[in-house]
Structures are given as structure tokens and as C-alpha cells.
């Protein structure tokens, strides 16, 4: 007997929950935005400028106190020092130095020299300097990338379905992005360039989910012309539920492997992605689909085009089975 996490022929009334879900999501979004406005994000040096230096010791714990006093004596402003992955490694973060790009390099050189003198066994695993010029650009490019991706997707779905679908998908996406920003505001995980990559991947993933549901909705609208929209949506969600759960689980399996075994450097990225898979799956079911009802998708608009001409429905026989 094969494993079935979702029983066959479920008839869950998803749409009946739409008001509760909507209120829930709006509250979460408000909380995210509020937290973002009050606390801001724990921005990495990619966006803020500054210096990070990862140090390690061969076979003994890193002397954090000594590092703290050595670097503190240099008078470089706001410095944070914490363990990184294990007690053999530590990450030093130094705020952006006043002055131009060259001032950052000078500070880095001073830190390296002072640390080598104080702790001869220390070695430098990784060092980053982001000057004031580049950090501003990276932040701008990151925001631009997310916006462009969302717009490109809106256009694609509009073109492939109807405007209600495009708008519904984009609302779900904005929902996902905002909640992920909120996630970073509350967890205080570092928000850096790789998180932008994670955000875009979440956009891609969430959309993937939404499109699968929408595809089924379109098919069912054509099949059951007389059925009320709410029933059609519920039917479509139930039909795709097994797939939704299955894909989320395989993706989560891979992501959790990365989270626990992939190392410290990409842990923030995988944390964002894991959160994104949950949020993206939720939004496809509880946000994107009710939006179709809300925007009043009518069967007629989809029936105008002749189904037989749809170029993406593969009706050719690639490999005949009989």
C-alpha cells in the first residue's frame, strides 16, 4: 500500500474559511509592517556598508572576550562579536567607518593586525568590506529586482489567464513578500543579498503553487459551466491538494537538509525559504483563490476563446501508448 498523506476525494470547504483567512492575513501583514517600521531589519553589510570578519581557531574555542577587548580598543564604533556555527569560529561585525571607501580598508587592516598580535593562532576564514557607494546600490538593485519579478509575473499570468488571475496571483505574492519581511523583522536574522535571492525564489515557488491551482480552476470553469464559482474553486483546491502537500513536503525535505547540514553561511537563506514555502502554500489556497471570487471571475470570459486552440494543452501524441 502506497503512502497517501492526503486522502482521496477530499471535500474541504476552503472558501468558507476565506473571511477568517483574510482577517488573519491582514493582521499578520499589519504586524509585519508595524514591526518593520518600528524595529527595522537587521541589515547585513551588503545594504548598510561596513566590515565583517570571520575568524577561527584550529582546535580550541575562539577566545571571544579577548577578541572583544582587542577590537574594542581600536575604537571603530559599533562592533558585534558572536560565535558562528561552532565555538571554533566567530563573526566580527563592524559598522561602516566614517569617511570614504578607503577608510573601510584601513579599519580592516588594523583589525587583522591587532588580532594577529593578540592571538597568534587565529586565522581569518572570511572577510568582507562593503563601502558606502556599493551598499546603496545593492539595496536599490535588490528592491528593483523583487519589483520587476513581480511585475513580469503579473504580465505573464494576465496574458495566459485573465486579469483577475494576474491580480490575484500578485496579491498573494505581495502577501508572501511582506510576511517574509515581517519574519526577518521579528527573528532579527540578518537581511542581506542572499535573502533577496530567497525572496525571489519564494516568489517563484509561491507562484508555481498558485498557477497549478489556477490552471485547475480554469479547466473546471470550462467543464462545469453551471456550477457556482465557490464550488468550482473548492473542487479545484481539493483536486490539487494532494499535489500541493506532496510538492511542499519534498521541497521542505531538501530545505531542511540544507538548513541543518548546509553550513552557517546559507542558514539565513534556507530559513527564509522554509518560511516562504509555508507562506506560499498557504497564500495559494487561502488568498489567491478567494481573490478570484472577490474579483468576480465569470465563466463567460474564459469560454470566449476556443479551448481546442489553446497551444499549451498538449494534445499531440508524443509517445503513443497503444
Amino acid at each position, binding site marked *: 500500500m502506497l503512502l497517501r*498523506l492526503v486522502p482521496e476525494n477530499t471535500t474541504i470547504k476552503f472558501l468558507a474559511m476565506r473571511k477568517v483567512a483574510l482577517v488573519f492575513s491582514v493582521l499578520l501583514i499589519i504586524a509585519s509592517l508595524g514591526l518593520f517600521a518600528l524595529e527595522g531589519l537587521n541589515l547585513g553589510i551588503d545594504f548598510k556598508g561596513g566590515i565583517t570578519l570571520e575568524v577561527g581557531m584550529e582546535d580550541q574555542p575562539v577566545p571571544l572576550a579577548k577578541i572583544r577587548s582587542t577590537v574594542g580598543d581600536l575604537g571603530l564604533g559599533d562592533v558585534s562579536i558572536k560565535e558562528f556555527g561552532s565555538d571554533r569560529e566567530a563573526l566580527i561585525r563592524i559598522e561602516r567607518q566614517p569617511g570614504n571607501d578607503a577608510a573601510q580598508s584601513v579599519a580592516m587592516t588594523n583589525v587583522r593586525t591587532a588580532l594577529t598580535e593578540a592571538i597568534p593562532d587565529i586565522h581569518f*576564514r*572570511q572577510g568582507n568590506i562593503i563601502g558606502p557607494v556599493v551598499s546603496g546600490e545593492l539595496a536599490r538593485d*535588490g528592491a528593483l529586482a523583487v519589483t520587476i519579478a513581480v511585475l513580469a509575473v503579473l504580465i505573464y499570468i494576465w496574458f495566459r489567464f485573465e486579469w483577475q488571475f494576474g491580480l490575484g496571483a500578485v496579491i498573494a505574492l505581495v502577501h508572501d513578500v511582506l510576511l517574509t519581511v515581517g519574519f526577518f523583522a521579528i527573528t532579527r536574522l540578518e537581511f542581506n543579498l542572499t535573502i533577496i535571492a530567497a525572496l*525571489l525564489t519564494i516568489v517563484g515557488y509561491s507562484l508555481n503553487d498558485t498557477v497549478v491551482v489556477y490552471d485547475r480552476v480554469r479547466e473546471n470553469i470550462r467543464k462545469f459551466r453551471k456550477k457556482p464559482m465557490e464550488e468550482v474553486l473548492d473542487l479545484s483546491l481539493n483536486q490539487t491538494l494532494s*499535489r500541493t502537500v506532496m510538492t511542499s513536503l519534498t521541497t521542505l525535505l531538501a530545505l531542511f*537538509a540544507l538548513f541543518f547540514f*548546509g553550513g552557517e553561511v546559507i542558514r539565513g537563506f534556507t530559513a527564509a525559504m522554509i518560511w516562504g514555502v509555508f507562506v506560499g502554500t498557504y497564500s495559494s489556497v487561502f488568498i489567491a483563490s478567494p481573490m478570484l471570487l472577490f474579483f468576480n471571475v465569470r465563466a463567460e470570459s474564459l469560454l470566449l476563446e476556443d479551448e481546442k486552440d489553446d497551444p499549451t494543452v*498538449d494534445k499531440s501524441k*508524443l509517445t503513443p501508448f497503444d
Partner: protein
Amino acid sequence: MILSVVLLGILTALPNFLSESQRAALPAVMPTDTLNLGLDLQGGVHLLWGAQTEDVVTSRLNNISDQIRDIRRTEKGLNFRNIRIDGDAVKFEVTSDDMIDPAREKLRPLTTSTAGGVNPLVGGGVQEMILTHEGMHFSLTLTEQGIAVQKREAIARAMEVMRKRVDPDGTKEITLQPQGGDRIILEVPGADDPEAIKNLIGKTAQLTFHDVVTNLSQDDISKGRLRSRQKVLPVKGGGSMVISERVIVSGDDLTDAKAAFDQNGRPAVAFSFNTAGSRRFANHTRSNVGRPFAIVLDEQIISAPTIQVPILGGSGQITGAGSVAETQELATLLKAGALPVKLTVLAERTVGPDLGADSIEAGSRAAIIGFVGVIIYMILSYGKFGIAANIALMTNLVLIVGALSFLQATLTLPGIAGIVLTIGMAVDANVLIFERIREEQAAGRKPFQAMEQGYGQAFSTIMDANITTFIAAAVLYLLGTGPVQGFAVTLAIGILTSMFTAVVFARFLLSTWLKRVRPTTLPI
């Protein structure tokens, strides 16, 4: 056809699993390119440099002014006065009306530049400057195009100089890449001391020889009573001297420079000039025996030896540059030539080799664990169909590695994350199809029809779903930098290969099985 794609993938991926010597033993037709590891995986220094390209315009205008002065000196019957730089233009006046036409004639060649001609095959240069005059007032103005060409040229020359300085023997596989109009990315794999590299490149290394002005009193100097085209420069080791701004000969004319020792055993840099430089240096030393000349490096006088005898051979030595190590560095710098623009570090990333190795290990471990998890889960859920999906998934991995090797794309740590993520998402296409087949079978269709319907109905969904993810990956690639781009590349390749393996390859496996066994119901 299907099998040949798979075979090709295996072939291109193969070199990654062989040792160096095994790769060398492969026949020539076999691909030998391995994965290109990013700096975050192999360790090294990544530096983003910003070039002050505005300087290029200034130095070009200075150069034009000098050429105008040369014309004044060599052409009889032409006299210019008040030669000055004003914005993007050089302005001057001729001293009488009848010089206007001959001046225009002589100045015209300056307006086009062959340097950096957009297309060297077409010949001719670009219109670099515009020559205008109002009566006796002349001006030579740099065009937008002229400025752009100068800047592009300067960046290209700077990259060449950087390469010679950082990697004089050409063995380090460094990467130099322009970014935007005024940025240069330098990557040095395996390096772990960014300071040494920054020192090597932070110096302009502009070497010039000048006449020393000796007929000024200390009083004149301290009160700044200098004549035009004279300036005070600091002397290395203390003090200052007045020199004439006119360059006798510069580092551009050097053909060679190496560290050596002078007759007293002090460290020195031995150099030799090209023919033009030798001639100019010979002319100057012949007529200035007994007078000092200044050797200037980056606005500092290194030494000011007195000319004992005319130097006709075009070679000599510079002493006073410092220790043995410093003369060695200076020799490298001089041989590489001067940087045409001043460069500053905008961003720096250094990854130690042990971190890179740790990242590879962690990434592969995560990939294997994720992979095994998904495989077990697929078999539990779909039985025989799951096995087909798993074979497709393994093929997919091989295809990704093969495609990355073939394209020589750079694999970064986020790139490994992209592959692991692809493992999770690649089975999505199969899940969609299998769920559809289950539905069709539950709706009472016979195995063949259920399969065919399943694939047919799921296809459009798979297309839409993958195209949207692909859009996100494309945006990431276009707007991302470094490691993020690495992630976008693996994600995009993963989408393409998973479409092939899940839709085409797994279907091929299943239909082959179906035709042979002909079951009454599908075990799904």
C-alpha cells in the same frame, strides 16, 4: 534521441568525477571541462574597484595642450598664446589674423583619434574633438563620444596593467571583468592577503623624469614665486625641490625594469627605454651635463642624480627607492606600466581556503541527505512510478552538473543551494503528472488512457508553473551579482533539465515498462 541527451549529459558531467591524471588520459573528443568553482568555494580574494574616470578627461586635455605647444614650437609663423583648459575644452588665441587659416589646418589632425576607434577594420578614428574659432579665439572641445572612448580605453588599459601587476607570470588564473562604465572586478583565486593585492594596485606608478630648477632662491620657493610650468615636489626622505613640469621621458617609454644593485651594493631598479625614449633622454643628458634631473614617482621625487656623462644607451638605474623588497615591487610596477586612472576599493570579499572546503563539504552533505530523503519519499508515495521519477531525478542531477561544466558557469555556495532546491522542486512535475494519472484512473480510465490523459492534462500546468519560476530566475540573473547570479544560473538550468527529465525521460521509462508488462491497473 532521448537517450542521446542523457548520454551527452553523463559525458559532460564525467570529468568532475575523475582525477587530474585520468582526465589527461581521456581521448581528445571527450569533454574535459570541470565545474568552475566560485571564489566562495575555492577561497580567494574578490575586489571591486572604482575608477576615477574624470581624471582621464583632465589628463587628455593636458596632453592636447602639450601637443598644441609642440605645434607652436615646431611650426614657423604660428604663435599661440594663453593656452588654457576650460571645462571639457582647450582654449587659446593666435597672435595675428593671418595665422587663423594655417592654425586650423595644423590643428585639424588633433580632432580625430585613432586610439579606441570603435571598429579597427573600418579605420579612421572617431571624432574626438570639435575645433571651433571665433576670430582669433580657438577652442578644441572634447565630444561626448571622445570622452566615452577615452574612458573605455582607460578602463581597458587599467585592466591590462592590473593583470601584469597581480599576475606577472600569468599563472594565477585571475579574473578581470569590467562592470558598468567605471568599475572593475578583480578575482584572485587562492589568495588570502587582500592587503598585498590592494598595495600592488593602489599605486599609480607614474614614473617621469624632469629637469630640476636650480636658479631659484629658497626665499622665492617659500614665497611660491615660481614661473609657470614649474612646481614644488616633496623628496623621498625629506625636503622638497622645484622641477620643470615638462616631461623629459616617462614610464610609458620603458621596455624593461628589474630589481638590481648599484656599484655600491645598494638596491636599485635597472631600466631600459625604447628607441624614442632613449633618443629624448640622450638629447637631454647631452646638453645638460653637470646639472641634476629628478626621477619622479607618483608626485614624489625618488632621487635627483647629477648628470655626469651623456647617457646614450637608453638604460640606467634608479637608486634610493628603498629596500630590496621595495625595489622589487617598484620594478614590477614599472614594468606593468602606469595606471591610466586612479582606482579605489569599493567592496572586498576574502574567503579563506578552509572555509571554501567546509562549504563544499556542507553543501554536498546537504545535497545527498535531501536527495535520499526525496527518493525514499517518492518510492513510498508512488511505488514503481516513484522509481521512474527517481531515475529521472538522478539523471536531472547529472544533466545539471554536465550543463554547468559545459557552459563553464561558476558554481557558488548559493548555487549548491539552488541544486538542492531543484531536487525538491524537480519532482513537482512528476507529482503533478502522477496525481493526474491517479485521478484519471479513479475516473475509470484504462491504464494507457490514464497515462496519456495524465501527461496531456498536466503538461500545460507544468509549463505555466515552470515559466513563472524561470522568470524569477532570469530577473535574479540580470540584476544579481556574484554568488546570487550563481544561484540564478543553477536554478534556471535546473528548471530546464527537470522539464526534460520529468516530462520526457520519465514518460519514456514508464511507457517502455507499460508496453512490456501491460498491467490491468496502474500501481499508483
